[in-house]
């Protein structure tokens, strides 16, 4: 019996590669599309109304045209442009919110876990309190009163995205600070900042990556929840806002499948991609999972 290669690169596991491919393809195609297609066509009155994708017919027997290959909406938005603008916008909400949340989590989690004491009590209390606030409800109120744009919306979502990473990182730091290499570093007089971010942080990278991806999905979900209620940017729509517009205009009843179908499909791909990356990163950070799957 041949002995399995004992050292394989854990980062090259199937779910991680597939997920990265899906997300990479989505991102690169939209980025390339942004170069070659006029994304201003995503604005209202940029194209003839209600056209189907090229090669199809709409309810009124109008045929699609090559100038608008993915069809148009009832306000004359070009669907290809909408997808090219909406996909990165939707993903960027997730990345920004998760990025800010993660950054706050790392700072608070490390300092509270490492130093303990009153600061730790305070951070824990804040994190526990924030967890109990219904983020979606707060965001709905804020959005209906003030209607903020995409980046501010991401920042607002981030306000509720930090307690998760903070609590987990704190727990990990509490364990790690008792380990031999940390004690050794302390004894050898290394500055506390270096101990936290040069000695301890690298050990958490696979976990942090998985957590970041999970948070990204969560933030996108929150944003979609807001947008499908109509509480998103209106001029250059994200995927959720596009679904809202299509529902509002009875697109399903009018057989305008390209209007609601394309953003829905893209969202499915985004979530599947992120989920696979998450599963893959789990395997990286947890060797037992890796063995179980072999």
């Amino acid at each position, binding site marked *: 019996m041949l002995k399995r290669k004992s050292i394989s690169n854990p980062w090259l596991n199937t779910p991680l590669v597939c997920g990265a491919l899906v997300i990479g393809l989505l991102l690169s195609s939209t980025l390339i599309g942004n170069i070659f297609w006029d994304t201003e066509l995503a*604005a*209202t*009155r940029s194209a003839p*109304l*209600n056209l189907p994708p090229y090669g199809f017919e709409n*309810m*009124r027997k109008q045929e699609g045209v090559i100038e608008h290959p993915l069809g148009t909406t*009832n*306000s*004359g938005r070009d669907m290809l442009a909408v997808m090219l603008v909406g996909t990165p916008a939707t993903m960027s909400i997730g990345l920004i919110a998760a990025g800010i949340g993660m950054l706050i989590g790392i700072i608070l989690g490390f300092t509270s876990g490492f130093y303990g004491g009153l600061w730790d009590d305070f951070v824990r209390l804040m994190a526990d309190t924030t967890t109990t606030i219904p983020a979606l409800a707060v965001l709905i109120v804020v959005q*209906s*009163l*003030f*209607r903020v744009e995409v980046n501010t919306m991401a920042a607002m979502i981030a306000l509720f995205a930090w307690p998760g990473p903070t609590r987990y990182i704190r727990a990990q730091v509490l364990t790690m600070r008792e380990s031999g290499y940390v004690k050794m570093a302390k004894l050898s007089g290394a500055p506390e900042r270096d101990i936290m971010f040069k000695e301890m942080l690298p050990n958490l990278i696979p976990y942090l990556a998985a957590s970041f991806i*999970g948070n990204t*999905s*969560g933030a996108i*979900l929150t944003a*979609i*929840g807001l947008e*499908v*209620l*109509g509480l998103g940017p*209106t*001029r250059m729509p994200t995927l959720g806002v596009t679904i*809202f517009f*299509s*529902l*509002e*205009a*009875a*697109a*399903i*009843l*009018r*057989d305008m499948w390209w209007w609601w179908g394309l953003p829905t499909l893209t969202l499915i791909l985004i*979530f599947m991609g992120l*989920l696979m990356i*998450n599963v893959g990163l789990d395997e990286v950070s947890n060797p037992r999972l890796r063995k179980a799957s072999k």
Partner: protein
Amino acid sequence: MFKKLALVALSIAAIAVSGVQAGGHSKARNKTVVFDIDGGKVAQPYNFNNLVPGTTRSNGIHQAVFEPLFILNYETGGIDPWLGESFTSNSSLDVWTLKLKKGIKWSDGEDLDADDVVYTIQMLLDDSTQSLRDAASMQQWVKSVNKQDKHTVVFNLTEPNARFQLDYFSVKIYGGVIIIPEHVWKGQDPFTFKFYDKEKGWPLGSGAYTLKSASETEFIYDRNDNWWGVSQGLPLPAPERLIWAVTATEENRSMLAAKGELDSVMDVTLGAFEAMQARNDNMQAWFSELPFSWLDPCARQLSINTQAEPWDDPAMRWALNYIIDREEIVRVAYEGTTIPSMTLFVHYGGLFPYIDAVVAAGMGMRLNASPHIAQKIIESKGWTKGSDGFYQKGGKTLEFVIKTHEGFIEKRRITDVVVEQFLDAGIKAEHRPIAGATWDNDRYTGNFMGSMDWHSCGSINEPYASLNRFTAKYLKPVGTTSPGGNNYVRWDTAKSKEFTQIVDKMGAMPLNAPGMVDMVVDAYRLWYEELPFIPITQARKLIPFDTTYWTGWPTAENNYNHPATWWQSTHQIIHNLKPAK
């Protein structure tokens, strides 16, 4: 994460299927009429004190419970009696005498008589804040109100007014002054009283229906078989139950209508109506073929806060007007189902002599845009285009934010197009849809730059009502509420005062008196030169009805009145309905 995914999927599904499930109610479907409510969830579902701004009355309460005194018939041009029998003036138009029908009772059995009318009007006259609905207009016109006998009320006016009955007591637009029961309201604070107590039978009205239940999304009314009309020989309406339901998106409303779960749908787009008809043969609208729609009396307009820089300058407002391409708005936002506004008036027959005169005097609105003229105006004010393509002056970008009610699709769609037109011309325009109550408050208190609305709504068969809304007497400083929602654009210049003088003179003349056309042209010129708001389009309403369970809906052929089911005139529609099977 899966939990979150499932939660969001569930909430999306809930939104998609929210609204009516008429089959689930205990009454048989063929004894129930289901209407929809647009504009989203009702903010204060348990507050039936409709004197207070911010409360909703088109949730069935003023269509089925609070009866009007008279109803303007848009088709005949006459005024149909309802609770009132007659409302006549003396020859000098400053004393009006209301005669109520005999035998009218509140649904608790108490008489509805002259005492209730006097009590209602006196309460409005006593409101020093002028914030109660209709308080400002009653205080403008009524010097005193007296009971002559049990069924007769005499109004002494501050000055002659030929439109007193028409404007305030005849459901000219949306609703008239609501008469309230003195025996319930006496001793209550009209600003805080909610007029809701199930055990006491509140809200109390005189209509053929009483409230059974209320919630943010649904209002149910059951027929009161002891309705006062029966004792006077009038037939009870056929429907035993009426439901008003918040039906959310056009998709949802159209689906429900296509499945026969909604009998009356508020305004929808042409595409949705065509899709509905393709699935439900019994769907009908005002006309049986294109354009299907009925013309709503509230033409759409862009209101501009004339106190907000740099739009306080009439020339800058004119620049906006030059940028607006009305034909494009009609083509994109309405998918071709309406027409551009020529003046600030609605295109009804009685107003055409005035519309024609204004247009002949060279003051008709342009259909297409002339952005080059706009740019010249803007540049003459010292603005120069920056590298980002937007005008700038002293480090400030030329911005224009338009607020809309997030629940009103039509107004949002117009705004989307207008914003693109402004952006193309170098103005950094932004569309900000906000919650309805906030939007109302912002407009009335002057906390806005632009608002897409119907502020000039008022004139139907004579020109005074719309013009009067912009007179200087309604001016309030920014931060305080505009009385009666009038002149919230806060037009306050020498020309507005001159305008006010002419319009006030018109108010003292009989309807459509000789010389009125010339006065309208004179007043209109002052308004036109300063353009405190910009007329955009006529508001066509495509209002579908389902005849599967109920027939007798108003149409161009069966035109006993107009089809606006969110107005107080809906009492007439309900009394005309007949079971289909």
